[in-house]
């Protein structure tokens, strides 16, 4: 009994030409920002090594936070404005550690450990709320951030010294109630540079090694894809990445040959390793059942539910992970900055991290590691050069500062708008 076969002309892999057009369209936001940054760098007339140094510092201390946003996006919960709560958890931990005068890497480690239960608690409440507001997760997360901030202020302004006894004149205000506005984390009993000070590696040289490894890896994958059907689908992305890494290799190699202060810049090894581990974690989790469940729920909640996936539980899990990661991310941030702005350090965490991710090309429904890193780099470049560029262009540095805040809000607004518009568009065309 010969089976009749229906033949289907499978989509031939598109030509490179139309592929490139598609890539440019999808990444238009990122490309615009690259142009903006180049313009800003030029206008600010600041020396490149200075910008590079500032930028590298900022990337190492901020990228962990941005990466923590990825899993909720995959799970279909949009941009997790609730990472503010994770940041608060981290801050509570570091206040505790500073109060008990435990410094250095031990203090940092203890703070990281302490962050876990607090962040899990906060994350649980966040997730429960988000499950109750399906379809409006992002605005709920945002308002929850404000609400939690109110509770946080209540805790540290009024409950410390009254209900929570804290006899510590360095931390507590003179009247005995409430924490001081800024807490210094430096010194032998502080956690400043706890992670960073571990070891330093030269930036350019390690970039060359990194780029070489990356290029090699993706070339290997391209060769592998010739034999494996599943990898063949991803061939084009392998090629693009190999090209990007090769470009990075060439650029960094070139820089290493010229005489420039850039070659003196060093990067904290431990921090970079930690960020690298998070990247690996993100990649690994997607290959597991847990990751597949995230993706299933993120693609279509209804179908996932009917197939027996416990949708609400999976969503909670995504937020829990994200919140804990955000807590650690805030710790990494604080140990580099060295000062805790008790009532303000966490406020803009959500906005800036999300703006950075979106600038990298992510959207409400799709976020990758590359986008997180590139976005962080671009966002912070703009941050660095805006005031000076504003001064040179308009004679007013304030304009530059306001401009970068406008950019952060604007990019989120535009991204949300585009996503919503696309959603409606797809719904109309769904047959």
């Amino acid at each position, binding site marked *: 009994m010969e089976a*009749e076969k229906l*033949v289907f002309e499978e989509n031939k892999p598109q030509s490179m030409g139309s592929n490139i057009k598609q890539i440019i369209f999808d990444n238009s936001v990122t490309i615009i920002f690259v142009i903006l940054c180049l313009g800003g760098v030029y206008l600010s007339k600041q020396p490149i090594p200075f910008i590079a140094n500032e930028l590298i510092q900022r990337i190492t201390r901020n990228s962990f936070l941005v990466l923590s946003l990825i899993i909720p996006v995959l799970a279909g919960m949009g941009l997790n404005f609730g990472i503010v709560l994770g940041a608060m958890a981290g801050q509570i931990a570091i206040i505790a550690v500073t109060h008990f005068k435990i410094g250095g890497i031990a203090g940092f480690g203890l703070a990281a450990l302490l962050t876990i239960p607090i962040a899990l608690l906060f994350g649980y409440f966040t997730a429960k709320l988000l499950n109750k507001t399906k379809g409006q997760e992002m605005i709920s997360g945002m308002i929850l951030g404000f609400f939690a901030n109110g509770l946080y202020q209540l805790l540290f302004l009024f409950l410390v010294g009254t209900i929570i006894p804290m006899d510590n004149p360095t931390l507590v205000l003179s009247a005995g109630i409430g924490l001081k506005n800024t807490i210094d984390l430096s010194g032998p009993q502080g956690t400043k540079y706890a992670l960073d000070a571990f070891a330093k590696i030269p930036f350019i040289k390690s970039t060359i090694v990194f780029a070489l490894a990356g290029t090699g890896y993706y070339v290997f994958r391209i060769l592998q894809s010739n034999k494996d059907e599943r990898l063949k689908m991803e061939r084009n992305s392998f090629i693009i990445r190999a090209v990007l890494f090769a470009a990075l290799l060439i650029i960094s190699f070139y820089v290493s040959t010229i005489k420039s202060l850039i070659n003196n810049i060093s990067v904290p090894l431990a921090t970079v390793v930690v960020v690298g581990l998070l990247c690996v974690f993100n990649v690994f989790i997607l290959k597991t059942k847990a990751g597949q*469940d995230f993706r299933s729920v993120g693609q279509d909640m209804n179908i996932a539910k009917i197939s027996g996936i416990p949708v609400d539980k999976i969503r909670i899990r995504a937020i829990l992970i994200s919140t804990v990661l955000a807590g650690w991310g805030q710790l990494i941030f604080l140990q580099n900055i060295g000062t805790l702005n008790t009532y303000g350090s966490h406020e803009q965490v959500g906005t800036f991290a999300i703006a950075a991710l979106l600038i990298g090309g992510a959207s409400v429904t799709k976020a990758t590691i590359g986008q997180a890193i590139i976005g962080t780099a671009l966002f912070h470049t703009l941050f660095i050069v805006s005031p000076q560029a504003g001064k040179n262009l308009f004679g007013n540095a304030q304009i530059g500062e306001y401009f970068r805040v406008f950019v952060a809000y604007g990019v989120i607004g535009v991204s949300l708008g585009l996503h919503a518009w696309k959603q409606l568009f797809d719904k109309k065309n769904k047959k």
Partner: protein
Amino acid sequence: MQNQEYIIQMKDIRKEYFGNPVLKGVNLNVKKGEIHALLGENGAGKSTLMNILFGMPVIHSTGGYQGEVTFDGQLTNIDSPNTAMNLGIGMVHQEFMLIPGFSITENIKLNREILKPNIFSPMLGDQAKTLDFKKMDQESQVSLDTLGLNLKVQSKVEGLPVGFMQFIEIAREIDKKNMRLMVFDEPTAVLTESEADTLLKAMRRIADSGISILFITHRLDEVMQVSDSITVLRDGEQVASLNTKDTNVIELAEIMVGRKIENMAQREEHESSKEVIMKIDNLVVDMPGEEVKGVNLEIKKGEILGIGGLAGQGKIGIPNGIMGIYPSKGSVTFNGQNIPLNNPAQSLKSKIAFVSEDRRGVGLLLDCSIEENIVLTSMQIQNKFIKNYGIMTQIDKKAIRAHALEMITNLDIRCTGPEQLTRRLSGGNQQKVCIARALTLDPEIIFVSEPTRGIDIGAKKLVLDTLVELNKRLGMTVVVISSELAELRSVCDRIAIVTEGKIEGILSPSDNDADFGLMMSGDYHKIHGKEVG
């Protein structure tokens, strides 16, 4: 009688929803390895029977069912979809449950992925295990190949033609190793002719491999082509169980429609004018679930025209398209004037009124009063009930109240008063409010879609009588669109049957049952065409 040759025996199944009997003692027996067709009009009880078979929550939350279900010789109580799945009962839905962004493998293996352990899994459990895509791809390809497709399982589902998605749905069910009984619900509805053919052949192969198939369809020719035995349901009763080789299309059509034992009041014979009030040419309407694919119809002035047919065949799309509620193409001429489509305001201005089938969704503002609901449309379209003050308008509360009271009396709307929120009314009274709103427009033609859906028996008669009254007293042309054939046959002058988005034919209420049945299943022209040709 527990017989080893049967995979499932449903005996004397009874079910009622809030006192309303939906299944009145139905027997269904499917042999192992056979294809068993389940026929019946809408409301005959097919979906309820399937819900019982799948242990759907809606059955148990409304009082359960009576009767026995024996699966593979064992008496069972299917109390949840999980139980059904574990027994090996699977369903291929009409609505595709596929995730477009996933590959075919990921869809087939959704929540049944094959896992391999890694360093973390001993500590963290199954959730941390790695996905074994190689094995999943292998198994999925086997399942897919059974259906005769030439398709790689690694491809993403989005972008595949609709017909292929149906096959992937089926592959997903076959992939479940313990599958014993598969239910196909109108599987060929969205397929092209050649795809349907391939599907039927694949069904035969599946049955031959030992999996029984329950085949729900309205296409009688397919039933004859592929099934081994047939059960016909009508009004919650099982009216026939036959072997396919013992019957034919015409007999099936007749059994499906049947004649009601009670005497439905016959429509008074009256001379309707020959004048055509509305001419519909090649109307195409994009209404999801009720697509119209080219309807040509002439409506005579002063008649009561019925439009019937099975659910999903497109009859409801017709008025929705004419009224501009869903995108449409084609041409509609009313009283000699061309009515522009996709423009609800224009259709309403031309004195065409419509009572939607979706009472609560489209027909009413549930949290507004009866009087507001009645006057709103004519206020907007005809500027009635408005007092003009130069730069500003204000609603004329007195006029609204007076008119509402008049309507409440005329249509006998049972309520506490014109200010009562329509949410609080019973289905029948809500329907009357919708009719009142349509009448307030003073229309020359009124389309009423599913007028008695979800209304209890007493109210049904009232609503139908009202429509007849309107026609008799005001000479209004009435078009009734309904899935209940008996209803149409009792009030209409002519009845058009819509099948597969087109008018299959126009019958008189007194035409024989077989003709109605054949038209609804789309086989009328095939049979009669053959005879003439």
